[in-house]
C-alpha cells in the first residue's frame, strides 16, 4: 500500500507542478480583502490635496486632477467658484438640506462643459457623492428661458474602473420631460485622462464632440418619446455608440449606448458569465430577522403627511447600504390585510438630493429565494448605469457582483440591504454566499 502510494505520488506530481512560495503577494490579498495598508493611500491623498490647493486658484475647467492608478480621473472636492456658481452652490446646499438622502455636507459643484443649440443654453455640472461621480444638466429650456435642472445621474467610480473603458455615457436623451422645446436632446458622460474627444455615431453619421474637464456634452435635434397605443416609443435618433479618441485621433475604446428604442441586451443564463452557476446551499425560507422582530435599525422615515402616499404603508426604516452613494433604501414589513393577505417585506429607494422615494416593491414572506427581492431603479428612461437594490435573507453572509469581463466587486450588506450599480449594456451576475463560503443565491442582473 505504501509502495503504491509512492508510485501514485510520483505520477500525480507530473500532473500539477509545485508552486513557488516567492509568488505570494500578501499586500494584494489584503487589498482584495479591503484591509490594505493605508499608508500609501494617505500619502496619495495628501499629495492629491496638495494638488487641489494649487488648483484652487485656477478656473473650474482645470479643477480636476489625475490619479495615475486608475483609468478614470478622480474628481477633487475642493473646487473654486466663479460668482454665478456661488448661487448654484447655495442652491445645492439648500436642496441638500431638504433631501431625505443628503449628500455629504460641503460638497462642491463644478461647471464642466457649456454648450448651446437653437438659442438654448446648457451647462453640465459635476460633483462627487462619496465614491460616485455625478453629472447634472441644467438648461434655459424652460418656458420663457426658465432654467430647468435634470436629476443628478451618478456612477460609482469602482464600476467605471472595473468596466475598463476610457469613457462612459451617463445619459443619452430627454433629460427634461416638461421642457418648452421638445425637439432638443442632450447626451453626456465622463471621459478618462488622455481622451481628447469622443465621436458619437447614429443613423445620421458620426459626430465629433470635444472633451473638457473629463466630460463631454452633445446636443442634438430629436423628437421626444411618444405614447402611441400606450407603448413608449423613442422617435429621437439616440446615438448608438461612443468612441474615445486621443489627441492624435487614435481610438482608445468604444461603448454601446443604451436606448429603449433599440432595446436592452437580453439577460443570459448563469453559465454564460464567469463565476458560479450552481446554488450549493439553497435558502428554503428566507427571512429578515430584525424586520420580523420589529427592531428599529437605520434611521426612521416618516412619510410626508400632505400627499397621502404613506397611507396604509408600514413604518419604514432608512438604510444607507453602499459607501459609494448617498442613496438610501427604505425597508419595512407589511402585515397581511384583506387586500394583500400575504405578509410581505417592502422596500423602495430615495435618490441623493431627492426629497422622498418613488415606487415601491413587495416581496411576499415565505418565498423560496435567497435574495428576497431585487429591484432596479433609475432616474432616466434610457438608463446607462441602472441602480439595483434589494434585501437578502439572514443566511446570506456576503454578496459579489461579477461582470462580463470577469471583474468582481464585493457588494456590502447593511442590515440585510444592498445596493449596487451595473452597466445597462452588459448583464452581470450577483452571487450570494453563506458564512462558509457556499453559494446561496445567484441572480442575473440586467434590464433586458
Amino acid at each position: 500500500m505504501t509502495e503504491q502510494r509512492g508510485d501514485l505520488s510520483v505520477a500525480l506530481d507530473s500532473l500539477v507542478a509545485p508552486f513557488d512560495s516567492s509568488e505570494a503577494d500578501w499586500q494584494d490579498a489584503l487589498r482584495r480583502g479591503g484591509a490594505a495598508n493605508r499608508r500609501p493611500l494617505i500619502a496619495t491623498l495628501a499629495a492629491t490635496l496638495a494638488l487641489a490647493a494649487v488648483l484652487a486658484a485656477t478656473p473650474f475647467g482645470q479643477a480636476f486632477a489625475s490619479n495615475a492608478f486608475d483609468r478614470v480621473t478622480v474628481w477633487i472636492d475642493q473646487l473654486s467658484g466663479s460668482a454665478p456658481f456661488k448661487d448654484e452652490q447655495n442652491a445645492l446646499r439648500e436642496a441638500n438640506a431638504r433631501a431625505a438622502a443628503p449628500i455629504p455636507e460641503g460638497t462642491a459643484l463644478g461647471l464642466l462643459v457649456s454648450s448651446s443649440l437653437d438659442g438654448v443654453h446648457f451647462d453640465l455640472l459635476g460633483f462627487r457623492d462619496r465614491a460616485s461621480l455625478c453629472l447634472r444638466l441644467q438648461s434655459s429650456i424652460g418656458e420663457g428661458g426658465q432654467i430647468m435642472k435634470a436629476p443628478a445621474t451618478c456612477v460609482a467610480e469602482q464600476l467605471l474602473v472595473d468596466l475598463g473603458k476610457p469613457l462612459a455615457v451617463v445619459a443619452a436623451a430627454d433629460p427634461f420631460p416638461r421642457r418648452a422645446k421638445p425637439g432638443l436632446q442632450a447626451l453626456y458622460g465622463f471621459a478618462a485622462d488622455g481622451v481628447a474627444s469622443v465621436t458619437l455615431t447614429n443613423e445620421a453619421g458620426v459626430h465629433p464632440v470635444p472633451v473638457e474637464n473629463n466630460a463631454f456634452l452633445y446636443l442634438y435635434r430629436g423628437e421626444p418619446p411618444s405614447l402611441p397605443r400606450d407603448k413608449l416609443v423613442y422617435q429621437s435618433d439616440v446615438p448608438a455608440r461612443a468612441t474615445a479618441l486621443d489627441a492624435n485621433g487614435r481610438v482608445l475604446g468604444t461603448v454601446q449606448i443604451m436606448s429603449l428604442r433599440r432595446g436592452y441586451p437580453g439577460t443570459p443564463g448563469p453559465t454564460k458569465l464567469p463565476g458560479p452557476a450552481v446554488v450549493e446551499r439553497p435558502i428554503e425560507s428566507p427571512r429578515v430577522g430584525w424586520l420580523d422582530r420589529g427592531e428599529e435599525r437605520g434611521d426612521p422615515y416618516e412619510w410626508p403627511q400632505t400627499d397621502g402616499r404613506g397611507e396604509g404603508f408600514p413604518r419604514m426604516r432608512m438604510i444607507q447600504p453602499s459607501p459609494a452613494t448617498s442613496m438610501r433604501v427604505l425597508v419595512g414589513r407589511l402585515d397581511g390585510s384583506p387586500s394583500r393577505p400575504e405578509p410581505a417585506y417592502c422596500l423602495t429607494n430615495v435618490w441623493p438630493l431627492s426629497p422622498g422615494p418613488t415606487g415601491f416593491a413587495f416581496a411576499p414572506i415565505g418565498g423560496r429565494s435567497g435574495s428576497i427581492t431585487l429591484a432596479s431603479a433609475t432616474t432616466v428612461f434610457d438608463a446607462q448605469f441602472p441602480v439595483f437594490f434589494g434585501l437578502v435573507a439572514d443566511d446570506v453572509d456576503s454578496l459579489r457582483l461579477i461582470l462580463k469581463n470577469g471583474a468582481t466587486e464585493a457588494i456590502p450588506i447593511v442590515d440585510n440591504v444592498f445596493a449596487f450599480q451595473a452597466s445597462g449594456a452588459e448583464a452581470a451576475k450577483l452571487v450570494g454566499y453563506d458564512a462558509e463560503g457556499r453559494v446561496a443565491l445567484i441572480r442575473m442582473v440586467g434590464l433586458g
Partner: protein
Amino acid sequence: MRTKRSSEGASLSEIEAVYRTRFAELCRVAAAIIGDRDAARDVVQEAFGSVIRHRETFRRRAPLDAWVWRVVINTARDHRSIPRPLTFEHPVHSQNGHAEISAALGAAVAALPERQRLALFLRYFADLDYKAIAETLEIRPGTVAATLNAAHTALRHTLTEARR
C-alpha cells in the same frame, strides 16, 4: 450594520501566517481543481480576500487552516463552475510513455467523484494528514481513509493499464 454572529474571529496576523506558510500548496490544489495554473494564483488571492473580509465570522471549532482550505476550495469550485473539461499539465514531449501515463492518470483523476478528488489533492499536493483532510472536507477521519482508498484503487488500475 448586520448583527455580528457569536464568534471569536481570526486576526490578520494569523491569516497572514497561514498565507505565507501554505501559499504554494494552496495554489497547487487550486490548480488541480480548476486545471489552470495562472487562474489558480488568482483564485488563492481572491479566497484570501474573502477570508480577510469575513475573518470576524471565523469560529474556532476547527483550525484556521481548515477554514482557509475550505474557502480556497470553494472559490476554486466557483471558478470551475463555468463548464469546461478538467485538464492537467502534461509533458510536451513523450519519453518512455510517460506522457501517455500522465494523460491517462489525468483523465482518471478527472473521472473520480468530487470528494475522492479533493481528498486526493489535499493528501498528495498539500501533504495534509487524515485529520486535517477531515476537518477541511467536514467529514470523519474514517471516511477520509475510505475515500482515499477508493481513489487509490481506481488510479492504481489506471496506472497498471497504462503501463501495459
